[in-house]
């Protein structure tokens, strides 16, 4: 076996009150795609940050080609050939695509000026290899997230990286973009680049990774080849639970179908349109029913949820809750009408990081817990106590800052905030994205319970299994319009993919949008 290109020996990292990494041994070889997995809080992010020079370790060391090489700064790590692609793309959104790609290594022409022509030509050539066909003169920020990620990846490879670290690169990609990404990863591997791949999606690991390291509670619990390792065994190692237990409970926590009463719809959406984004979207959700919104990234799922919740002002259309019309374009009005939205972007649109868990939970219902503008601490305490217990929110105390919690617990805090608002309709946009397996199961179970209690639920999920098992019906969107609906026995992964694919073939995607460019390019492969 070849030497490790990048490895750690007995790596230890502490944060106040937490031992984030406890003598972790980890190593990746040239030409290997190495999966790094574990629940949230297992130490994956910390390990990556130590590997890439963001954090200094408190003990142990990082080795590059077997020699000690603990990096003091991210720049030092980059210079040692380690490139990182974070979940959130960290390029310069206002600069052009080409400039981002060549940042710090611009081709120079006469008088040492940037040779823009060459830079643009080169950029187009390089990006086309990644399935990105776009005007490279446009600001990067105008591209879709998927295309931005490809640019980040192209840059990482272009700067001649020996090790590429990817932190959940597919979390905002659609299936075809994922295929393109995998193609790029395989090519990197064949060229002898070592890839560290972090993901929550097991399918992806088996599709693209050669080896795996499982972390739990800051320790290495397993490291070795991925082939031959049973999927359930992997899950059980991540969770620290026995295989039988996992098998018995299945991989999602959804129960059976809900007896979707023939009752009147609690939420009715009629002809909802948003300039350039949604076209005449109509559907209804009955009490006790979970309705899934299916479709690819950019199909208008999030926009639909946001405009129903008042976060996006529609240009036309009507939203009614239990027959009463809701004023659109105002989150406050929607909340008062009984509509709550768990937003897709938990970190920027959900959690208020500097406020405590307690304040976060009470945020949307402050007026109700106040008298004459004065907050009642006792009422907040009792509300917060109830929800922290019911949702099993793990925090050192209600006064811990919400920004310090793990993703799963942040999501539970947000759910608590919305449940406290006593909604009649709950809109869940990617409720389990980026949270660990344990919390995911709890959230899924909760959705079932809420529906059983008579809430109307609208579920958006890129995780097909979750969408299919969780929903009683699935409304399929494409390019901002409803293109189909699956009910009863039709609610299967195959039928959903057929619905999306059939729709896509009927009328080729012509919009000038970056994700579309990627899709088209991927289709040529």
């Amino acid at each position, binding site marked *: 076996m070849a030497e490790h290109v990048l490895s750690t020996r007995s790596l*230890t990292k502490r944060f*106040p009150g937490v031992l984030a990494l406890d003598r972790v041994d980890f190593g990746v070889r040239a030409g290997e795609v190495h999966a790094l997995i574990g629940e949230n809080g297992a130490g994956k992010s910390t390990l990556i940050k130590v590997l890439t020079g963001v954090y200094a370790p*408190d003990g142990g060391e990082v080795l590059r080609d077997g020699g000690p090489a603990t990096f003091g700064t991210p720049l030092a790590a980059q210079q040692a050939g380690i490139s990182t692609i974070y979940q959130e793309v960290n390029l310069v959104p206002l600069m052009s695509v080409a400039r981002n790609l060549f940042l710090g290594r611009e081709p120079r022409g006469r008088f040492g000026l940037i040779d823009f022509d060459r830079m643009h030509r080169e950029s187009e050539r390089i990006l086309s290899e990644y399935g990105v066909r776009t005007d490279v003169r446009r600001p990067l920020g105008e591209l879709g997230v998927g295309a931005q990620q490809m640019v980040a990846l192209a840059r990482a490879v272009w700067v001649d990286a020996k090790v590429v670290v990817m932190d959940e690169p597919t979390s905002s990609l659609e299936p075809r973009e994922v295929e393109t990404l995998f193609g790029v990863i395989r090519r990197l591997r064949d060229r002898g680049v070592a890839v560290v791949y972090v993901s929550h999606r097991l399918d992806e690991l088996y599709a693209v990774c050669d080896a795996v390291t499982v972390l739990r509670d800051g320790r290495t619990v397993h490291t070795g080849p991925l082939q031959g390792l049973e999927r359930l065994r992997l899950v059980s190692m991540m969770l620290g639970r026995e295989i039988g237990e996992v098998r018995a409970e299945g991989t999602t926590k959804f129960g059976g179908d809900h007896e979707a009463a023939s009752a009147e719809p609690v939420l009715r959406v009629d002809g909802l349109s948003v300039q350039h984004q949604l076209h005449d979207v109509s559907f209804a959700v009955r009490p006790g029913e979970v309705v899934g919104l299916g479709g690819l990234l950019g199909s208008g799922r999030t926009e639909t949820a946001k405009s129903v919740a008042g976060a996006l002002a529609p240009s036309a259309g009507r939203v009614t809750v239990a027959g009463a019309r809701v004023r659109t374009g105002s989150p406050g009005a929607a*909340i008062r009408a009984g509509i709550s939205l768990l937003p897709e972007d938990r970190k920027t649109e959900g*959690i208020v990081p*500097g406020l405590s868990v307690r304040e976060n939970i009470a*945020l949307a219902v402050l007026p109700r817990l106040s008298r004459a*503008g004065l*907050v009642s601490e006792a009422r907040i305490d009792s509300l917060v106590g109830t929800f922290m217990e019911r949702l099993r929110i793990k925090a050192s105390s209600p006064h811990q800052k919400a920004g310090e919690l793990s993703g799963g617990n942040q999501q539970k805090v947000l759910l608590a905030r919305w449940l406290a608002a006593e909604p009649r309709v709950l809109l869940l946009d990617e409720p389990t994205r980026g949270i660990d397996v344990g919390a995911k199961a709890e959230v899924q179970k909760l959705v079932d319970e809420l529906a059983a209690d008579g809430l109307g639920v609208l579920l958006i999920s890129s995780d097909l299994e979750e969408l299919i098992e969780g929903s009683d019906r699935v409304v399929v969107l494409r390019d901002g319009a409803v293109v189909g609906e699956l009910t009863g026995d039709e609610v299967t992964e195959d039928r959903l993919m057929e619905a999306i694919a059939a729709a896509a073939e009927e009328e080729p995607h012509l919009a000038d949008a970056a994700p579309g460019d990627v899709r088209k390019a991927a289709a040529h492969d």
Partner: protein
Amino acid sequence: MTDTAAARTAPDRAAVHAWLQAYGVYVGVAVLLLFNIAFTDHFLSAENFRTQAVQVAPILIVALGMALAIGSEGIDLSVGSVMALSTSLVALYLGYGPWIALLAAVLGGVAVGMVNGSLIAFVGVQPIVATLALMVGGRGLALVLLPQLKDVRDPGMRALGSGDVLGVPYPVLIAVALVAVVAFTVRRTTFGRQLLAIGDSRPAARLAGLPVRRVLVYVYIASGALAAVAGFLATARLQASDPTSLGTLMELSAITAVVVGGTPLSGGRVRIGGTVAGAVLIQLLTATLVKHDLPPSWTQMAQAVVIVAAVYAARERGKR
């Protein structure tokens, strides 16, 4: 465990910086007090404390409003000009008695605050730009209303400026009362909680259905009204109305007091106790240098050092 000591240093450093950001200002005040008690003649006298307290009152009152603006992830550069507008209005309306004059001044501050707040909340202008416009325009308006310095001879005003209750001057009493009101507002009211949430994460606050625009307008109205009260008290103490110079550079003193007091410029937190100590620190620093016969330019340089120290502590804290 041999690596325990090494492992502890990093979090400890962060903890030290956090502590410094929150409480460093109190240490600074204590050090200056001890220094003056030891080396400054006649420092420990009731008369001196009285003078210091009366001088700090307007800075403190303005800083309270600034703390709210900064806590909402904004800033209010117009406070000095609001003081000028306030002094002009006082001179114009004093004929109806000091209370009417005060009312006119506060309404002037509220009006400026409404314009600031509306530009920021409804038009979407950045706080620094919106309040810069009012900073320039506000003083202009003050000078239109009262083109030159005017003596303010009114027994009621003089009593407010220099009278006292049990030895505590009125301006100090008013400042203390306003500190209590603002602290209570921040901690115990719905408005206060919403303000902090908006300052910390505006998109999250909006999606949580908070009345973001209304809260922002109220913040700038409060800041304007507080600056107007400060202008009124300064006029009463000087017994003159001078819209040309009153309140110049006050916005910088107020921002210094707030930042040195541990309120982060990134919003989401308001430290009232720290702001009080920050205002006192600036006042003591000025007094110390003046009493030791150093030129006023030294005061500005000393302030600069204090600001850099405060921002440094905040920076280290933000890094973790």
